[in-house]
């Protein structure tokens, strides 16, 4: 009996580990796992405080996005007009409830309801499809752009001003072409504005 219970416990633990790994894997597929290189990440999308993705998109994206928006709005407006045309006249519902209502009218009414329901569903599906298409494309463009920038930015090592101060190297200032560089332990740095922060970026 004890042996069976032990096997059950082991099975549960193994199953839990498998589930957790599956969830982590799903997270990673959704875009996680980026970062590294520093002990603490200080930036990210929330630091931008923007309500929208960056608009710095390649030309192809803005033109397509615009077209997509127009198509989306157009279909939505067209759908509204269709819906209005099919809507029953005010008061018909009350009249339809009279006892003398015949079977034909009841069938017709049911047909109208079914038709309207189908139309609504079609319109909803179409709108959802448009939204998904637009979101997928925007995400793709955004990710392309961000990855490109991240590669460029991460391509250069840098240290913050506070870290620079703690390095304690007796640096040598070198001016080349009007630009001041700092040589420290055989590494050449340039002091630059990296975003909103002053840092020392490695240039050699």
């Amino acid at each position: 009996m004890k042996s069976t219970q032990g096997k059950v416990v082991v099975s549960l633990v193994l199953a839990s580990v498998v589930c957790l790994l599956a969830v982590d894997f799903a997270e990673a597929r959704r875009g996680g796992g980026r970062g590294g290189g520093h002990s603490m990440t200080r930036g990210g999308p929330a630091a931008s405080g923007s309500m929208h993705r960056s608009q710095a998109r390649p030309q192809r994206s803005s033109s397509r996005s615009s077209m997509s928006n127009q198509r989306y709005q157009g279909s939505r407006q067209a759908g509204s007009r269709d819906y209005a045309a099919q809507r029953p006249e005010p008061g018909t519902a009350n009249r339809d409830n009279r006892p003398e209502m015949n079977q034909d009218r009841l069938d017709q009414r049911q047909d109208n309801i079914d038709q309207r329901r189908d139309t609504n569903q079609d319109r909803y599906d179409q709108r959802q499809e448009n939204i998904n298409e637009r979101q997928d494309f925007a995400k793709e463009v955004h990710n392309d752009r961000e990855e490109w920038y991240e590669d460029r930015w991460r391509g250069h090592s840098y240290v913050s001003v506070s870290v620079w101060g703690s390095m304690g190297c007796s640096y040598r200032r070198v001016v080349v072409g009007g630009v001041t560089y700092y040589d420290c332990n055989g590494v050449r740095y340039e002091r630059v504005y990296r975003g909103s922060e002053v840092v020392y970026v490695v240039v050699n």
Partner: protein
Amino acid sequence: MHYRIRILASLLTAAFCLSAHAQTAESPETPEIEPEALSVLQAMSDFLAASDEFYYEIDTTYDVVQPSGVKYEFGVARKNLVARPDRLHIEAIRRNGVAGTMIFDGKHIWAYSKEANVYAQTEQVGDLVESIEFAVSELRIKTPLSEIASPDLFASITRDLETAYHLGENVVRGVTSDHLFLRNDYADVQLWVATGDEPLLQRIVIDYREERGQPQFRAQFSNWNMAPKNTREKFTFVPPKDAERIRFYVAAPPSDSNREDAK
């Protein structure tokens, strides 16, 4: 007996997997745009558009998702002076004490650090909207809530809008405000806009639901001044004599080949 225990174990495992999956799934919202919400946004936009110059302060905090998944909060306090069509003055101080000044004087964009005694300068092209876009995308400078400087804030906020709810009235730091919920294709936004004759933004919370870890940005507004005085000197930057001029670290825009590679 063994059979029952095995069934129980299977059920427990299934329940655990389902609950884990549910935690990672997104909860659906019913898209709907309420006219009351839009009218509040329109009133706020119209009120801001009526003034070419205005001043406000924001205390911002934001989550940064670490590679481990843990979220850390950082914060920056900012004083913003806007003068349309093309001037902007921002003084920012982070919680770690690092301060910086950013000035758009209509011809140049300046960044100045008193602590490091350095400044950088680059050409400013276009109005505030274009200049801010350039600063954010190319110089990678953070200018949170820069939409407020737009002459058409309503259009900016409602771009790609999918949902807008008016959630009722709340009191935010003593100011009765309309509480709105907005959803676009990227983020969920909550706004608190003062009721009455001066419909000014009091608070904003942005949830980046599409981003890993769903980080949040929060900003508390204060000291709105729709008629600031003696602003000219604020938009004029004269570098201190001993300050060193440094460069913006700019990532060049992608070439056509880069774009093709990115496809």
